[in-house]
């Protein structure tokens, strides 16, 4: 155990000092920050033009019955409608650009639903803020002399969430409700997860190959067993990868807060729910363990670094499958093919994270997927340990398939 800890500390220390690791950890938050700043800059430049020239005509339907003062604001003109049908007709006739419904349970939920023929990302923070003002003024007016706890809570935060429904030209809900925001952010999240898994497992493979090429492996094996070496490396580099993911989560959360001041409604589109964070980290750990062990086991067979990387590269295909099926998953996240690849251990991490952004995956599917991954990890570990023992000291040539099978039996 002590020796495993030594290897873990050594690997973690070496990886945290690597330039490539530091750059990889920082590059995505920096890029996101630059993106947000750029978006903010462009919006502030164009907003000035829009506000001076255009006033957005928007309608609303008050199902609560207290929002009857359509206050005039600089670039938002509100018109009250008595029913959703009326508002929808006005939208299709072009009298208004969007309308929102304040539902009867608004005080409990804080949710309003916005109907628009435009994409939700186009709701500017200014428009959102003006809707917010409208709600606030009306609530103050209606409840000035009888404030209860529920009303106070609503006054503190008039808008909890804006649900957006995209309408087509005829005023019917559009077939493709998957908004650009959800689409892009889900993919970004999956890509980051794949990068984190492959970066960490890549470091493990690289470290094993280096030790084989440097010929230090024989010295290490004269001090510790191949199993201790593998476990120490997997834990050490796994912690390095996990630190990277946690850093991305924390900075991602901060950046999302920052982005919500620039891009209205972005926090409604994609929120860091505890379920997402827990499953994200769980699947990172499982994905990392599976890929790291498989890549190292296969990597040990290669006679050169390039050969080992080529051999282990076969497994990356598994993680890419969900991205190839992107169209299908976006339209039907619960399709049977999406479910099959939720259970397939190599594609499960990316498929689950992708689907989580689009649908509520049933608990039984998650439990089954995690169980299959754990079993796969245990089997891979046993095979990889035998492979390491048999082939780490084979220099200069790759074993034949026959030799591979025979050595696994003997190791």
């Amino acid at each position, binding site marked *: 155990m002590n*020796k495993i800890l030594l*290897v873990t500390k050594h690997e973690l220390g070496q990886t945290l000092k690597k330039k490539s690791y530091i750059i990889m950890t920082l590059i995505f938050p920096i890029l996101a920050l630059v993106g947000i700043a750029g978006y903010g800059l462009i919006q502030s430049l164009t907003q000035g033009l829009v506000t001076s020239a255009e006033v957005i005509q928007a309608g609303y339907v008050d199902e609560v019955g207290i929002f009857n003062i359509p206050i005039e604001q600089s670039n938002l003109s509100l018109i009250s409608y008595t029913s959703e049908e009326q508002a929808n007709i006005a939208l299709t006739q072009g009298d208004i650009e969007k309308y929102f419904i304040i539902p009867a349970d608004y005080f409990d939920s804080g949710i309003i639903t916005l109907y628009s023929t435009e994409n939700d990302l186009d709701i500017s923070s200014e428009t959102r803020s003006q809707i917010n003002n409208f709600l606030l003024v009306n609530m103050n007016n209606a409840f000035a002399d009888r404030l209860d706890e529920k009303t106070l809570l609503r006054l503190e935060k008039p808008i909890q969430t804006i649900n957006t429904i995209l309408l087509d030209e005829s005023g019917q809900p559009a077939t493709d409700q998957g908004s650009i925001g959800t689409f892009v952010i889900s993919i970004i999240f999956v890509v980051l997860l794949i990068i984190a898994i492959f970066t960490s497992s890549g470091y493990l493979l690289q470290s094993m190959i280096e030790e084989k090429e440097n*010929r*230090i492996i*024989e010295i290490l094996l004269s001090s510790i067993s191949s199993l201790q070496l593998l476990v120490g490396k997997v834990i050490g580099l796994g912690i390095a990868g996990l630190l990277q993911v946690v850093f991305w989560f924390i900075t991602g959360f901060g950046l999302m807060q920052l982005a919500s001041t620039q891009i209205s409604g972005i926090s409604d589109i994609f929120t860091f729910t505890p379920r997402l964070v827990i499953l994200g980290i769980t699947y990172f750990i499982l994905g990392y363990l599976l890929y790291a062990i498989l890549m190292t086991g296969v990597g040990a067979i290669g006679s050169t670094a390039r050969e080992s990387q080529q051999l282990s590269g076969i497994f990356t295909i598994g993680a890419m499958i969900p991205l190839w099926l992107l169209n299908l998953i976006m339209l039907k996240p619960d399709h049977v093919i999406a479910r099959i690849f939720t259970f397939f251990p190599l594609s499960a991490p990316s498929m689950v994270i992708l689907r989580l952004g689009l649908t509520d995956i049933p608990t039984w599917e998650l439990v089954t997927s995690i169980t299959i991954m754990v079993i796969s990890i245990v089997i891979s570990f046993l095979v990889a340990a035998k492979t390491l023992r048999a082939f780490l000291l084979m220099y200069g040539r790759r074993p034949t398939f026959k030799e591979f099978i025979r050595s696994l039996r003997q190791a």
Partner: protein
Amino acid sequence: MFNNKPQYIAEVSHVSKEYGLTRVVNDISFNINPGEIFGLIGPNGSGKTTTIRMLMDIIKPNTGDIRIMNEKMNEQSKDKIGYLPEERGLYRKLTVFQCLVYLATLKNMPANIAAEKADDFLAQTDMLPHRNKRIETLSKGMGQLIQFITTILHEPQLIILDEPFTGLDPVNSNKMKEMIFTLREQGKSIILSTHMMNEVEELCDRILMINKGQSVLYGKLQEIKSQYPVNSVFVKSSDTISDINSVKEIRENGRYQELILKENSTPQMILQELLDKKMDIKKYEIGVPSLREIFIQVVEQNK
């Protein structure tokens, strides 16, 4: 009074190793005494490295038993052994000091003691100025010296050196030989695996010769040499030596002539013939067979 000291530092009994249908080590047995330098010799591919790897528990034998200091070989036994493999390597990106300490701690030596010992050894070998340099910046010879230090830093009782002099210049080679002798004086046992017979003759007390995975010679070096009959004499003479009945062949060897004996001839018979012919003999020396000659002879016989 009961003596806890082990009789042997290592005991290898009837060990065999097969890869598929090939038996690379076949029923080998030997013991290592405390405080001796033991030569493990044999031609390339004879099974020396496989034997050493089994001794280090890096690979498992198919049959046979290995005991280190009275205990059956296990993971803990590895801490009592220092190993310098033929395929050498160190962490290129680490400094000399970091590398020495890390590898010693893997042998269960506390880090603070490893650090002290590392500095001691670096000072002894004049390598202290290179303490904080990266391994990749060292010359090949320096790297090899550092590798040797990693082998002995954790104070093992048994030290296995696989071709330790390969690639060393005469100065570093001598430095390493001195260190090996010092280790023997300290009571450590050393297994020296090499195919350089002059090194074996210079350093080893006992030897095991392996050929095609089998033990062909085992015992004290002098006893083994004495088992091989004298087959030549060296003569320095101002006269030209020829037509000696007991001699099979005469080889010109610079200032000497080497006379190869016929079967059943003795050096005394040759000397008598030379005296009978009234030859002027300035020097007459019996040629003891070198280990190299014995090695070649044994390998040829087993072809």
